[in-house]
């Protein structure tokens, strides 16, 4: 039996200090952590429980935007009237994620740090080669079953998808991840796998996500999260898109547009090329479809995931057309 110790932190500082120990891990909702512990992927020596920390679950939404504490539950945020009004795509990304039971347990902080669903990553006893788990050991997925692997942002070392939905919406609307006093734009929070796929975010040892901040914007207010998958519910995205559009006073010309993709990339993927090509234009189906194809520029297939290169632009296009009243 693997013994581990359990420590309930009394303050963020205490939690932070406790996680400086090698082998210590923060425990929030536990839905990623315990799952991976059962798979044998994470083997913490100490669990530092932060779920009792006061104030970390607070949410406020005002004219400037939303601040959401790291311990807020996925379900709470999804149902929050302020979030739903000012950031529909954010609320939808959460309500379309996982299952009701998981959303009631899982926290926003933990959500941002969920790990890939790569099957090879999740079976260490069978597939020793996994650079993300065991740097330098190789990648078992390449050459294997890659239906759910990334086509964007991959490297020779790793092609695993970042499967989260929320982060996609956050990337679209320039949210920040707050780690106490340190604040990082969410796009910079996630790293490409490169040669070091084990290193997924800029979070440092001992750092705790305290919350996220999402600046208000007209595009965020007029937004949607479209998630496409074989199963109607309770499945990760085959491809997803967060899209928000602000129109000029004429109600037609695009002043600002945000596009991000999920389910297809090694990190939440902002599609700036799509945005650039549509800003200042009046949307029409053909132009949107053409622009959406820019979302997969540079995409690489590994066989089983080839369909994602076809699917992702269609999802982006549909989301844009929906927000533009053309779908």
């Amino acid at each position, binding site marked *: *039996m693997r013994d581990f110790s359990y420590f309930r932190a009394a303050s963020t500082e205490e939690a932070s200090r406790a996680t400086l120990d090698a082998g210590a891990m923060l425990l929030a909702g536990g839905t990623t952590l315990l799952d991976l512990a059962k798979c044998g992927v994470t083997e913490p020596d100490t669990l530092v429980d932060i779920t009792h920390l006061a104030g970390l679950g607070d949410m406020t939404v005002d004219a400037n935007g939303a601040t959401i504490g790291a311990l807020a539950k996925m379900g709470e945020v999804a149902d929050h009237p302020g979030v739903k009004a000012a950031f529909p795509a954010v609320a939808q990304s959460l309500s379309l994620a996982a299952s009701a039971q998981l959303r009631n347990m899982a926290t926003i902080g933990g959500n941002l740090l969920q790990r890939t669903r790569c099957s090879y990553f999740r079976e260490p*006893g069978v597939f020793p080669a996994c650079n993300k788990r065991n740097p330098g050991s190789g990648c078992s997925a390449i050459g294997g079953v890659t239906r759910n692997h990334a086509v964007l942002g991959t490297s020779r070392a790793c092609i695993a998808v970042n499967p989260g939905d929320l982060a996609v919406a956050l990337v679209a609307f320039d949210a920040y991840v707050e780690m106490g006093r340190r604040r990082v734009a969410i796009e910079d929070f996630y790293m490409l796998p490169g040669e070091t796929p084990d290193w997924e975010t800029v979070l440092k040892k001992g750092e705790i996500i305290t919350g996220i901040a999402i600046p208000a914007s007209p595009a965020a207010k007029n937004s949607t999260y479209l998630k496409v998958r*074989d*199963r109607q*519910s*309770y499945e990760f995205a085959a491809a997803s898109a967060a899209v928000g559009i602000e129109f000029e006073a004429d109600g037609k010309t695009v002043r600002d547009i945000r596009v991000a993709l999920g389910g297809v990339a090694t990190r939440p993927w902002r599609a700036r090329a799509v945005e650039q090509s549509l800003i200042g234009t009046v949307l029409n189906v053909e132009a949107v479809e053409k622009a959406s194809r820019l979302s997969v520029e540079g995409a690489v297939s590994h066989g089983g995931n080839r369909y994602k290169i076809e*699917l992702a632009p*269609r999802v982006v296009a549909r989301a844009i057309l929906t927000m533009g009243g053309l779908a």
Partner: protein
Amino acid sequence: MTIMETRKHGDAADGMVGGRFSRLDGKLKTTGGATYALEQPVKNLVHAVLVQSTIAAGRVVAVDAGKAKAAPGVLSVFTPEDDLGLLVASDWFGNRPDNQPFHPLPREVSFNGQAIAAVVAETLEQATEAAKLVKVSYEETQPVTGLDDPNAGEGRLVDMLSVGWGDAEAAYAAADIRIEAEYRTPREYHVPIEPHGLTVKWEGDFLTVWEPSQWTHGMARTYAEWFNIPADNVRIVSPFIGGGFGSKAMGYTYSAVAAAAARKLGRPVKLAVTRPQTFTAYGGRAATRQTIRIGATKDGVLQAIVHRGASETSVLADFPEQTGAATPLLYAVPNLSTQHRLVPVNTVTPGALRAPGKNPSAFGLESAIEELSYAIGMDPLELRLRNYADHDYQSGKPWSTRQLREALTVGAEVFGWSKRSHEPRSMRDGRQLVGWGIGCGTFPVLKAASEALIRILGDGSVEVVSGAIDMGQGTYTILAQTAAEVLGVPAEQVDVKLGDSSLPGATVAGGSMLAGAITGAVHKAATAARDELIGLALNDSNSPFRDTGANTLVIADGRISVPRGEGPSLTLAELMSAIGRDRIETQRNTLPEGANGPEDHKRSWTTMANIEGPTAGDLSMHSWCAHFVEVKVDEDFGTVRVSRVVSAFDCGRIYNPKLAESQWRGGIIMGIGQALLEEGLIDERFGRVINNNMGDYLVPTNADIPHIQVISVGIPDHDASVLGGKGVGEVGIVGVAPAIANAVFHATGKRVRDLPITLEKLI
């Protein structure tokens, strides 16, 4: 035997046979009161955890168990080095090689995920952790990973499964309209909500096994033979089962390991197969491929069907998933030929999964029929009716009952089929393409004998006792109804005891035959009990009926009285007390006289050798169904959602419509999963199923399931069973997947011939 007046199903308001009775075990299950095999509170228990192979073919060179043995709490590590002292047990038909040793933890590895070691420790956590420390070294050989492996070959022809009449090849060649296509189904898994496992305990030479079991007597025999002990020394206890679907009808290698470990260690052992391990601890449905050629006239009269199918099996044993099982049965065709091949690959031996054979077979045939309907521009409903088989062409025998025409016409009516426009891509709902499709299904009536005991107790209550099982299909409930009807008592007054091999013998809960078999036995035993009670009432010197001059009595609503009501009327309890009896006990079975000795019992309860097929007599007996499905397809994304299902069934007389409908719906839901989601993804480099968990092997959620309307069009079939029912449990899944594939074609114009129909196949 009393002839029971048959009622039309579902119209009985009294809760007797035919009534809409809720499941008697429902409350126990939903409130957590039902104790499952792995929850048995057994003292002094230790835990076994399996170690499965990580290669698909080769041999175990060495197992380094040093670290595992040294881990805290570990009692023992079993490896291929250990001779567990077991013997090979009989197959399903009772055939058994003499004194052949059985090594459930073999040295030869024949598939990835094969159990090769087991760790036993004081706690589950200790055993789980220690299992990770077991280091196995292998000598690998090149595996054959599936039907498409270049080294798989075309397989071995299974002669027994070749069916033919007329000259199919010639008739096909001469036909005006010819279609030909290949259809495929992947490996599919049972994934019951209760994963497999067992708790075992030895007391001297007596073995008690708490294990979910679709067949307590058959499994008891297996254990007895493994351990070379008398059959009566083994008791399988399985009152509740969290779903089986065919996967819980036999002892598996891990069962033997757990029982052997318990014997070696002198402690009760619990072995819980983890969800990932269940994907290779026993077999799911084998992958299949089949080519179908149909020849027809221009106006849609079938001339020939030529069918060539294959399924994979393991390198250890043959388990054909018969792709031709439904092919000869559904339509009138003057020339037919089907053949099936078995292709050994490095997989766990496949097993029976809801409607084995019939299911993939119907996927091929019912897809092909609609392909023909588009080729000739004829409505697929009309095409099916035009080729309606008025008798069984394969056996040449008349059907016992076949309400498939009614199923098709009633189903069509309720579905609104006449509003369909035939052209593919011609129906829309906003952005979504709408498609309608039909799939017919069939499942044979299998007959077997069973035995039951009835007790009328002093307080007037009734007990029904049998070793038959209830895995959720409703055995408890329909047996209470059966006994209540015969004995004239309210069903609440009947207590049913099942799921224990020490109780009277019963056939396997498989092949949709248990209900027919066991209601027959209960009916017979209850009738005997009633006759005995009435006899006592008329003749016992203390009975108030003795002097009434009546020559028979009636029992109704729990009271016994003289016909036409002149004279005394007593509750059963009052009568029992008057005649001074605390019980009346009758045990009866449905074996024929003259073949009812101990050997016959053993053969009937513990093997499948005495099971009669659908054409054993003068008739051909089957259940039938027709599914009507509507799908909506978002063509940009390739996503398919089933938006409506209407299915009409002929399963003969329905003993309890509520339960039967639930079985049908369950089958249809599984069919939706099979059509759209379910597939074991095999990494061909390793021959391993990599989506071996419920997060990655997807089955439908509530959100995937629309309203499903099920209709019974059956009529009592007393050739099929004593009470007139035909099989209910399996036919529901048969025909669902082709109905969906047909609807997808109608919606999109794209024909998907390999399941599941996932989005990448449509974009």
